[in-house]
């Protein structure tokens, strides 16, 4: 099996195909500290792409409450259990990826969820990790905690779905790295469903072939961010291109957050897929849980987030989240503003780092009115 580089586990690894990175790689950063699990993203995606018969159970985007929410049931604890001990030394993963741990005769270590595993998309919602005892009080991390994990296809650099398909019916677009299931070639074998550790390929009972998140490519091709990103009312999401770490461009917002500042981390990097949706970890969750989920960079990311007010560049980049539906190619922070630019370098958005304060008198002479202090 060819050896490829996976910067997220800081070592070469085995993959069935040679390394072939796309010209640009679709990516996003989600700030979990701001997610309230309102599911607006879920419904935006659902209404746009999966409203048909046979797609009833499909959520290409879902938000689950951790630690007890799963869609499908137990997906991540099952894959972690299959992988065995996930040991990191420094930033290097010592265990096996799903490709390296594949049983004989298989390409990927995985499992096919039971049909009923998909029947509880909101299981564990808002359930905390324990019960509140008398005398408990808040401290960081929280003793009793939960957090919301928004999920979609990671448009991985090394997709397990693509690796597992015996028909090569899954492909990664060279122009933007979006991973697609060819609807004319898929024969519904569900090897991809079995292989994807994130369980983000779904079988359509009516067309009898598998479907998955298409990265809203019709929008992306026209310079817009995806439905789940632009509809987020908490403004927790930002789309952008990610470069490999040696080509990181500090002017690209995703490169800046992931490679320069290292505040956003991949989800379960130990699977070896090099997933491209990155998460700013929640600051209130016990560190061991987060380390298992996002890898060894969580302490650094949390410390950085706690001191956001001291880092104008980082704060500026985060204010661009949810500020425009256009695809931000590059950004700049200057003079108290964060600026976003399109592919031609034209300004598409400008956000102040601090909203200006206006003090208005109680009696408005011009309009002959009085204003009450009602926020």
């Amino acid at each position, binding site marked *: 099996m060819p050896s490829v580089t996976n910067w997220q586990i800081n070592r070469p690894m085995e993959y069935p195909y040679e390394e072939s990175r796309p010209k640009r790689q679709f990516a996003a950063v989600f700030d979990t500290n701001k997610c309230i699990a309102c599911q607006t993203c879920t419904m935006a995606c659902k209404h746009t792409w999966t*409203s048909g018969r046979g797609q009833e159970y499909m959520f290409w985007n879902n938000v689950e409450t951790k630690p007890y929410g799963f869609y499908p049931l137990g997906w991540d604890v099952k894959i972690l259990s299959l992988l065995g001990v996930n040991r990191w030394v420094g930033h290097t993963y010592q265990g096996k990826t799903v490709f390296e741990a594949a049983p004989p*005769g298989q390409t990927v270590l995985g499992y096919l969820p039971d049909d009923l595993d998909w029947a509880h998309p909101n299981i564990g919602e808002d359930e905390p990790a324990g019960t509140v005892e008398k005398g408990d009080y808040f401290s960081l991390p929280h003793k009793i905690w939960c957090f919301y994990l928004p999920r979609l296809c990671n448009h991985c650099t090394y997709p397990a779905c693509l690796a597992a398909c*015996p*028909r090569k019916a899954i492909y990664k677009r060279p122009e933007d790295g979006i991973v697609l299931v060819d609807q004319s070639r898929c024969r519904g074998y569900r090897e991809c469903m079995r292989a994807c550790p994130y369980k983000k390929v779904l079988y359509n009972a009516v*067309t009898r072939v598998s479907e998955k998140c298409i990265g809203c490519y019709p929008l992306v091709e026209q310079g817009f961010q995806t439905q789940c990103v632009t509809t987020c009312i908490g403004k927790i999401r930002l789309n952008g291109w990610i470069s490999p770490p040696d080509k990181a461009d500090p002017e690209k917002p995703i490169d800046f957050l992931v490679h320069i500042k290292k505040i956003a981390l991949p989800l379960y990097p130990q699977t070896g897929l090099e997933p491209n949706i990155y998460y700013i970890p929640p600051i209130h969750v016990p560190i061991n849980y987060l380390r298992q989920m996002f890898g060894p960079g969580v302490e650094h990311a949390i410390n950085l987030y706690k001191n956001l007010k001291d880092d104008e560049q980082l704060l500026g980049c985060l204010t661009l989240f949810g500020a425009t539906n256009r695809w931000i190619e590059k950004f700049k922070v200057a003079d108290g503003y964060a600026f976003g630019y399109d592919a031609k370098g034209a300004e598409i958005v400008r956000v102040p780092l601090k909203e200006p304060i206006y003090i208005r008198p109680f009696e408005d002479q011009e309009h002959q009115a009085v204003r009450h202090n009602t926020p």
Partner: protein
Amino acid sequence: MRRVWIILLVVLPSLLAQAQAAKLTAKFTEQELLPDPTAPIWNQVQPVVISLSPQQMAKPFGGGAIKALSARALHNGRLIAFLLEWGDATKDQEAAQTDRFSDAVAVQFPVDPKATPSPFMGDAQNAVNIWHWQAAWQRDIDEGGLADVDRAYPPYADEVPYGIYVARDVGNWRSQRDHKTPVENLIAQGFGTLTHQELQHVLGRGVWEDGRWKVVFVRALHTGLLGDARFIPGQKSLINFAVWDGSSGERGAQKSVSLVWHELMLEAVPAGGALPGTPASATTKEVVRVVGVPGWVAVVLGVLGVLLGAIVVWLLYHPRPSEPEIG
């Protein structure tokens, strides 16, 4: 290296075991051939038993639930029909649930009757024509329409008025609503290349009774469609088989296969024996070189096997340098 070992230890012994390929004769009959597995005409034909092995060449490996099938063939100068039977305790016809798979069977023929493609779905130079019957499609036809969520999860609203069915819109045969036949007509040039044919004119029908599937395939001897196998009375051809057991999770590459081609001999049409208005072998001027699996191939394979067996023994007992750990 691992692939070499698989070939040495798994494929070759199986090849040797099956080197004596079966001979299936399609007897001539003057009767009409219908897609009916229970037709009495089949009682006049002796079945040929084909042994099957798990597919272990292309990942994912799998299969093995069904160990053998029996095959019979008939032709009437115009149509050719095959009856395949195998034991399967579970009748798996559900295709609408994410974790369930359909029982299925497939037969395969060289597209070019003069060629001998790889018995494993053909090769880049030599295409094969595959007829694939699925129990789920049989159920769709038997129950008068596509069985989907309404039958998998009753009760269900009659129709969802919205939704896009991309696979159906782009012409994926699997996704079409009204299949006229439970058999998909396909062409392949090696693993992973299976593609549906432009015309779907292979008829068929399968019935499950007392733990046994009986599936019949019927097609014209000659269709004229590029990529369709051609059968010529009086001539030999090749045939191969694959079976899937849905409840064992078998689908796609995970199937039981026959590892060698088997000879398919079409009896010549007796003078004046063809049904009215049908082309008989007497009218076929084309001369086709006969390519079967003759006895000398088995002998050559046997000698090769002994030689390779000796290499395996030598490799097993010869000290090898340990492979470096992957860092």
